[in-house]
């Protein structure tokens, strides 16, 4: 059964992608959108063609080799910070993750620091104590409909907590300065929690500083400590 489903995914996902990329027949909205986007799509095609050709010409024989250059994010003051190279296997240090495949066993919440664009962001797994403290902090927040989460910018954008479970909320949290957005499991709905004092962000920032991060990231997070 699983193999059949995997086979179906392999054979049908390209069709899903094709279908999503194809405009609905006779749809005025699609036609309008396509017309409006035509110059950008043409530009994209041109850039894509050039870059793909360049990729094919310049790519190393071993395509799976991890890149060693990273995007340069900006600190909150606009200064460019130097991201360290990511040599093969140099992933952010993390706590051990259970290998159990039992879908009923809860996985510890995974925190991602939103700071990089061109390389994997640093992550760590919450300890049981941190998980309990975070649940307490999040459950104290009130649901709001008026808050807006800031647009992401280059540099530090807060944290994402995946597989978060508390008495009130279960899902993926996106934590920014004054708002915590919870993408709830399993329906995918999003609720916004007001955090005017930034208590959840500061809590995660404290724990982030306990992780072995590089100096530039530590410096940025310290500003939000």
């Amino acid at each position: 059964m699983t193999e059949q489903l995997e086979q179906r995914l392999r054979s049908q996902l390209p069709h899903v992608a094709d279908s999503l990329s194809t405009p609905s027949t006779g749809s005025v909205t699609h036609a309008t959108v396509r017309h409006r986007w035509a110059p950008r799509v043409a530009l994209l095609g041109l850039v894509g063609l050039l870059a793909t050709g360049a990729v094919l010409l310049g790519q190393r024989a071993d395509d799976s080799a991890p890149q060693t250059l990273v995007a340069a994010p900006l600190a909150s003051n606009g200064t460019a910070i130097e991201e360290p190279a990511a040599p093969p296997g140099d992933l952010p240090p993390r706590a051990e993750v259970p290998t159990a495949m039992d879908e009923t066993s809860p996985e510890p919440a995974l925190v991602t620091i939103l700071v990089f664009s061109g390389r994997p962001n640093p992550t760590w797994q919450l300890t049981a104590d941190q998980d309990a403290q975070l649940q307490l902090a999040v459950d104290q927040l009130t649901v709001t409909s008026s808050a807006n989460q800031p647009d992401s910018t280059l540099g530090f954008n807060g944290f994402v907590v995946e597989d978060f479970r508390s008495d009130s909320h279960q899902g993926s949290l996106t934590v920014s300065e004054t708002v915590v957005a919870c993408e709830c499991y399993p329906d995918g709905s999003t609720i916004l929690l007001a955090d005017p004092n930034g208590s959840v962000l500061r809590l995660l920032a404290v724990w982030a500083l306990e992780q072995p991060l590089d100096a530039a990231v530590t410096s940025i997070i310290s500003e939000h400590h």
Partner: protein
Amino acid sequence: MVQLAVLLTGSPTIAEDVVQDAFSTVIERWDKLDNPGGYLRTVVVNNCHQEHRRAKVRARSEPPSWVLPLDTPHEIVELRDAVARLSRRQRTIVVLRYFLDLPDDEIANMLGCKTSTVRSNAHRAIAHLRRELSS
């Protein structure tokens, strides 16, 4: 790359934006890149995640509303709906694993997690899809 972004965002227009931005990023750093293809793929996935978060907050609700042509076969619509209802992490892993055919260790490298985490998330995603598609 656009198809990868389409499967992660559900929107061809957002996908084109994301890939265009990613190409711009790659071209800016072209001289210093060892593996432009891998770098481009990573930027596309990261940008899709950022776009997904912004879209979710803007919409404050539903899973991605993926619009398919009216003549799309039922089984494709069914699969699209099931994949759209996966969590972002699970959807990303399913797409990278079954659409791009990337090995688990490379997916783990891209997402900054352990291979075991990729495997367990894939297992959960498959279990979820099996339930959705059999109901």
